[in-house]
């Protein structure tokens, strides 16, 4: 954030990511509208705004992240306002405002995993996938490799503290992860 009007413009600035080539581009289709409308229908009249989060999850699953162009559409679907949706999107770290890679590492950095070696895993994965750990900041806690295949994001508790360090690759949980295991995972998925 700077001391220019861009502090507001930055809210919907597109953050380019090499991972975008692995995901379809956000596009409003009749199917998407129907899917969102079905989510909105789950809530009583006057409470359409409650569907903002479910729709956000649905979009993130389909398109990898919440792109700026989708915010006004979500607001329209839920009878909400773009600023309200933007507030929700920027609040949750789990909602991505930048496209992750094809394979997305979520490495737990909560205390149990951190103590059992999770802390060292982050720079190791970064070096393996070729990203600079310094680019992982509070504002953008995700780094994507140049080829878009890989991305890494430190996250909080993955609810498996007894078997740390834990990480998730896309939706799959790996526990008691070591450097060797990371090498194996990367080797396994590299050509998939």
């Amino acid at each position, binding site marked *: *954030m*700077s*001391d*220019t*009007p*861009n*502090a*507001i*413009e930055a*809210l*919907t600035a597109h953050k380019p990511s090499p991972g975008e080539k692995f995901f379809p581009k956000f596009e409003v289709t009749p199917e998407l509208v129907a899917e969102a409308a079905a989510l909105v229908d789950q809530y009583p009249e006057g409470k359409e705004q409650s569907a903002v989060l479910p729709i956000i999850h649905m979009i993130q699953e389909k398109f990898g992240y919440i792109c700026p162009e989708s*915010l006004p559409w979500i607001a329209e679907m839920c009878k909400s*306002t*773009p*600023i*309200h949706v*933007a*507030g929700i999107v*920027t*609040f*949750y*770290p789990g909602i991505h405002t930048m496209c992750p890679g094809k394979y997305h590492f979520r490495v737990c950095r909560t205390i149990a995993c951190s103590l059992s070696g999770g802390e060292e895993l982050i720079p190791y994965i970064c070096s393996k996938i070729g990203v600079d750990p310094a680019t992982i900041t*509070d*504002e953008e806690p995700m780094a994507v490799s140049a080829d878009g295949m890989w991305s890494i994001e430190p996250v909080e508790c993955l609810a498996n503290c007894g078997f740390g360090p834990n990480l998730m690759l896309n939706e799959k949980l790996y526990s008691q992860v070591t450097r060797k295991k990371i090498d194996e995972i990367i080797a396994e998925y590299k050509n998939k």
Partner: protein
Amino acid sequence: MSTQPVTLPKDEAAAEGKVNVQINGKWYRFPKGTRIADACNSVGAHVPCFCYHPKLSVAGSCRMCLVEQGMPPRLAPGATPTYGADGYQPIQWMPRAVIACANTVAENMGIRTTSKLTSEARRGVLEFLLTNHPLDCPICDQAGECKLQEYTTDYGSGTHRFTEAKIKKGKNIPIGPRVNLDQERCVLCRRCVRFMKEIVGEEVLGVVGRGAHNAISCYPGKELDSNYSMNVVDICPVGAMTSKDFRFQMRVWFLKSTPTIDVNCGTGTNINIWTREQKVYRITPRQNDEVNSCWMPDSHRLNYKYINAPERLTTPMIKTDAGAPLRPSTWDATLNLVVEQLHKCAPAEVAIIVSARLTNEELYMARALARQLGVTKFDIVPRTGESDNMLISADRNPNTTGAKLILGKTGTGLNTIRRGVKNGSIRSLIVLGEDVTAEAGIPEQDLAELDYLLVMDHSETPTTKAADVVLPGVTFAEKYGTMVNVAGRIQRLNKAIEPVGDSRPDWDILRDITQRLGCDCPRVIACPSPMIILEEIAAEFAPFEGINWGNIGNEGKVITDTGVTIPLIEREKAKK
């Protein structure tokens, strides 16, 4: 069984629908449902608040209003409550503080606003609020009326332990045409967000980010451009929202505030005029729950520049020959000339146009002048627009109701006057506080055909340019007087600055002319001030009966039923 007296304080209070609350050791009674913050403030136990605003929903986000609270101990099964000699149960104090804005009072509740727990809690909250605050008070417009500054002085620790780098956020962001945003100064009370959502109904502001990166923002491409946007500047407890108009104009501690009313429409919004050395710097709304709640429209708020503008008329001016330019003169010479000229006019050929922007006292004097001259063609200029369904009334004259009560005029005679001026049956025209080329619809070429045109106004207009004699009156900021708003409420105008140059209050000019014309009625010529004129009005007109300057007060008094309501106030009442 209890051996206590038959009536306990709790029963007495319950009979009135109230509850007993102990605040700082003293017992008080409050209606059920009163917020702890309101209760404490009403008995002088000040509770500091950032996010709580009585007109908005409760957010409870700032934690500044933490107070120590206690209740009677929870009874063991089968136990009966015990009462002390004063009839109250003992209070068991809670180990943690509670927020005073979101909690309501309850029977036998105890509150401490000055205890160690409370002051520690306040100090802690302030320390956190200041961790990322830029501390740029020396260049901040809010300095001097900033709640963060005040509370830090009152409850803060004076030093801070946060040595890490502060988080940078956006500064000096033009968030709307009239408002600037500084995200770093913000304490995230969300008053502005709630105001825009709940009162204006345009949800353009929101909170984005998380934790220490939280910031108020607009959605890109949308801006805070509502006609009520500047109210967020008033309710912002810190310098996050600042008025572009007032930014860097004047330090607030140099300003004097005068409670008065707005004259841009029939609502008569209650305002404070902030002045220094005879110059008006800003206007802010003043709370009146029957007129404007806590708000005012931007268009009215910013319509004050004419008060100190170069267009102001500062001396009487006369035209010595037809076609000659107006030249400045003295009051005495001008008034003598006016009287001489008016004596020459045949009353049947004279018309008077008065403004419904004049006060009741001025209208009374205008009526006296009309009677003295024997003029019957005499009316106000109606001025209507569209109501914005908030605070701006469809009647854009501030005192139409007063004019109807005092003059009995409604603007219907204006057509006759306009026609008369056009066809030449009216040879002389007296215009009091209007530019007749505008809403009254008398074109300049018709004015040029008149034998005699006498104009009293505060600023130069096409009408004053066409006049034979111009008498410099004053604006609403320079005079005392009363007006009756669309809902029939009489309200006071107070003088904030001295009349500019040689200008004089309109009532004074009118009285002088009437007196010099030969009027000897003491009820007109013996009036030394608008307050005395108001007494004459009260004695003469039934609706004003019993009204005097003192008993109108700062909130005004309803004197007549007009059947007109103010939409925003109606909505606010319906909410309760």
